[in-house]
């Protein structure tokens, strides 16, 4: 498998695991005045799970893929937060 393939697969797994954390994030939902799900271990498990692809790349010695994975996950993670904020925010015209 090439560097790109390793990086793409690892990034996809991490982002798929980050998505439910972001969607069900209690503080984010509270700020939008939406119902907050009861706390469980799910968030922690998903969080650690999102880091596992990085650990796998370390074990495989795929250092360039590791750096691309880290860059992709942090950039797309940030953009995901921006997107959710825009989708959840009240219309500015509404005042």
């Amino acid at each position, binding site marked *: 498998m090439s560097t*790109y393939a390793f990086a793409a697969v690892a990034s996809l797994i991490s982002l798929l695991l980050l998505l439910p954390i972001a969607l069900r*994030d209690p*503080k984010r939902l509270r700020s939008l005045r939406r119902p907050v799900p009861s706390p469980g271990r799910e968030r922690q498990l998903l969080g650690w799970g999102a880091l596992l692809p990085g650990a796998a790349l370390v074990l495989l010695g795929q*250092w*360039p893929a590791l*750096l691309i994975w880290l*860059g992709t996950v942090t950039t797309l993670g*940030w953009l995901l*937060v921006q997107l959710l*904020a825009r989708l959840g925010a009240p219309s500015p015209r509404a005042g």
Partner: protein
Amino acid sequence: MIKLSQERNKSLLAVHGWSAVFLGLLLYAVILTGVASVFAKELGDWSSPLAQPVADSFRPGTDRMLREFAATVDPQYHEEMFVFPRAGDRLYAFFHKHETDEDGKPRERGVAAEFDPNTQTLIERREGTDEDVDAGDRANALGDFMVELHVRLHLPNPWGLLLTGVLGLAMLVAAITGFVVHRHLIKELFTLRRHKEKLLSARDTHVIAGTWNLPFAFILAFTGSYFSFGSAFGIPAVAMVVFGGDQEKMIETVIGNPPKEDKTPAPVADFDRMIADVRGRTDAALNFITVQHWGRADSLVTMFMQYPEGKLLGPTYVYSGATGEFRYAKPSLGLQPSTGGALFELMGPLHFGNFAGVFSKAAWFALGFAGAYVTITGLMLWTLRRREQRGWRHLARATVWVGYGLPLALAAPAYAFFPLRAAGELVHGPMMTVFLLVAVAAAGIAWGLRSLTLARRILLGLTGLALLLLPALRLLSGGAGWPLAFDSGLHTVLALDIAFAVGGLLCLLSASRRHAVNAAADEELDAAVEA
């Protein structure tokens, strides 16, 4: 979460804010030009492509090309030569000797040439010091402009390097203090509030971008400072202490390639054979060749390879320049592999993001962009918090000037570059003039208009227009059209034309929106500044 007393938290927050306030605008400039510099080579490929894409820069016949060029060069410049592909994959070769200028600073003097590797013919020849040779360079001018601004803010050595080194340290300080004072790093990773509480909204915008960007803020700040201080201070200091000020001698010793001196004239070995040999030793592509003492018995040829698939370190091989015999594989420092040498070598890929082609560069581009966003949102947050104090209102205007005016000023030099290059004129001076004039005009807009929102929208709109028209400017200045570029396989030309057009449209779209979702904080700040 790091637990700190309220007092300590307050002190660290002050360090975080003040370090950014004093250097934040310059830091933003360095980061933004760094973002552009990630694609400096592609900027050259886009602005100055050859008629056909180059499949192999060092194809058979390179030997004849270099040999014929060497025969036209004064032998005093045979002390050293390097050759590597640059804009459009032109082969750039520079025969030179080392000397010191009037101030005792080391410089190179010699003869440079650009070749078309497809036809293996000379495109251009320039002579003089390394500075003279660079001043006459047109093909790489756009990319070099960004790199020079990023590396030393176009200031003379060593002041520019020292300043960018300090800016790197300021970024490191801001990243560390930001990490320490942020009490709920993980808990607030997804919390970006967009409502009436303007300060909260501005704070979240800055903190969220900063948190996600934190690992790379450390990496880029550390490696950037390392490069700046290493060149400006580290090398001269070590040379002064150990080598009596002889930087050349120091570099030769540390790099570990000091050939035993033998001035006996000797024929130069066949480069095509050495290139074929080195390609049999690794699957990495050949990137850069240096030749020490061309035409002497002690001549050494060093071949630097790109990063092999799946690696962050590229191999280097050394040959005898007189016999063409393979001598040894060489680590970047010394002659034996070492942890220090590997760490030294890692600085490059970690800072430049060039270790895995266009995808790693794209990731570094995005990360740099996020870093610039963190810097500018931090400054906006600072001024918003102090909006009642008149003195800080100038910083609010300066933030708009640099934050939105600098991208416009960076796009503007292309409007001097393309027509002047087409007319066969020198481009570097006029590019700098246009950059400065647009920067001054942007300052006029930032301070001249009462409404900061309007100033921001005008600057963003002009940036969008400047980017959107770049492909047309390239075409009107004699650049390859899309059908020709597509047929010839000049993919970088097509890709960057599209990227500039899309970037320009996004800027125009953003500038035309009257009610941005996150405009509340901006409007509050504007109201205070305009009062």
